[in-house]
């Protein structure tokens, strides 16, 4: 359930065309969201089993508790889509009692986009469902899957950029390289100087020897 809620929230952020009636607050099966009427013995049906008209198949526990939970599922945490969600909830459940926002157990430090994409990767059916839900609404406006992937990539890039920006490793490497080459060249020049001195010494000695012999 968490993954569905997360995905739909993130999609709500990513696509402005999402604020339409019936577009889905998913979590009528939201975790413990004041839904004491959900029988604990029966496992709730996943969201993608919901009927096209908006109702639930008869075997799903949601069918019995729908009235109590309808429209209350949009979580307030995480992706800041509360406005869109509650707008959805408002339009969808006109006439039902005011829903309470569920106590959304979002663990600290979780990245919603990553969770969403991970779940999509793990479960192809789920990925299909998410894509159909959004593409059905958006048609050719936005390639939602690509947008989600781009968001993850952008986050990685920003992380590595921040890393590069805050460490001084590269500058120090560059400065060391410059000093090494400069030192190398100076040592090279110095060695040439020493060899020259030796050459001159040899020449002087040979000249002395030759002129001494000549005498």
């Amino acid at each position, binding site marked *: 359930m968490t993954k569905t809620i997360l995905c739909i929230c993130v999609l709500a952020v990513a696509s402005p065309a999402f604020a339409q009636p019936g577009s889905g607050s998913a979590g009528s099966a939201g975790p413990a969201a004041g839904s004491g009427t959900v029988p604990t013995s029966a496992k709730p049906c996943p969201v993608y089993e919901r009927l096209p008209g908006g109702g639930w198949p008869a075997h799903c526990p949601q069918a019995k508790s729908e009235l109590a939970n309808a429209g209350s599922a949009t979580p307030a945490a995480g992706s800041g889509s509360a406005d869109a969600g509650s707008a959805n909830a408002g339009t969808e459940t006109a006439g039902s009692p005011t829903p309470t926002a569920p106590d959304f157990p979002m663990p600290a430090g979780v990245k919603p986009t990553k969770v969403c994409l991970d779940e999509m990767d793990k479960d192809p059916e789920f990925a299909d469902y998410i894509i159909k839900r959004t593409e059905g609404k958006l048609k050719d406006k936005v390639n939602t899957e690509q947008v989600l992937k781009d968001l993850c990539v*952008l986050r990685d890039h*920003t992380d*590595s*950029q*921040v890393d*590069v*920006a*805050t*460490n*001084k490793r*590269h*500058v120090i*490497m*560059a*400065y060391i*390289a*410059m000093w090494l*080459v*400069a030192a*190398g*060249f100076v040592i090279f*020049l110095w060695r*040439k*100087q020493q060899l*020259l001195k030796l*050459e*001159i010494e040899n*020449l002087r000695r*040979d*000249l002395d020897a*030759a*002129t001494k012999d*000549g005498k």
Partner: protein
Amino acid sequence: MTRYLAPLFAFLGAIGLACTCWLIFTDTPLQYSWQPNNRHWVLATGSGSLFFNQKIFFWHVPHAIMLFIAVGVAGVSSIGFLWKRNPKWDDVALASVSVAVAFGAVTLITGSIWAKAAWGHWWIWEKRLTMSLLLWLTLVGYLLVRRYAGASGERIAAGMAVFAMIGVPFIYAMVGAGDNHPQAGSEGNVATLNSDMRPAFWSSMVTFLCWFLTLTITRVQSARMEREVRELREKGLDTGVLE
């Protein structure tokens, strides 16, 4: 008088180095601006969020400019040597090429480190990097020919230097249109450099110009002395004084 040129430039260069380092690390701000669509900080000149790594610029660019100056000097003095056959030109050419190899090595290494910091790769086949690498390879070939080609090595190497100098515009034109190289200022022109960075930049240019002159003058003197010793020995052998 010319005896004191090299130490003079060395002294000036040392002062310049102290000034430059001080200016780089205290006076030049870390420039960045917020780009809301990408949601991260970027350098004000638009060359990516380099922050501290931008300081490499002050080492890299003067070395690159000195490299091109050295190659120009080498080409011109090679032409002079081939034309006048005066060995003094050849000494200048050899010294220029040696110094160009050293400065080119620093340019390539610091450029590569900057590339890693800015773009994430150690090397890409972009216009200026390719040109610098090919130029550097030609200069190393010059030194190899000087060393291992025997008596006629000087002439052959001088020919190489002329070809290299003429080939530079071809290498430049060869590497294609799009230039991803970080620009020095808003127009890629040093004159449009952000005014905060100018003092450090000009200080580093002066420092490395002094360093370049020091090295070149020292190397010219060394080459000249080597040649004189060699000629003296040959004269001694010719006259029969030495064996």
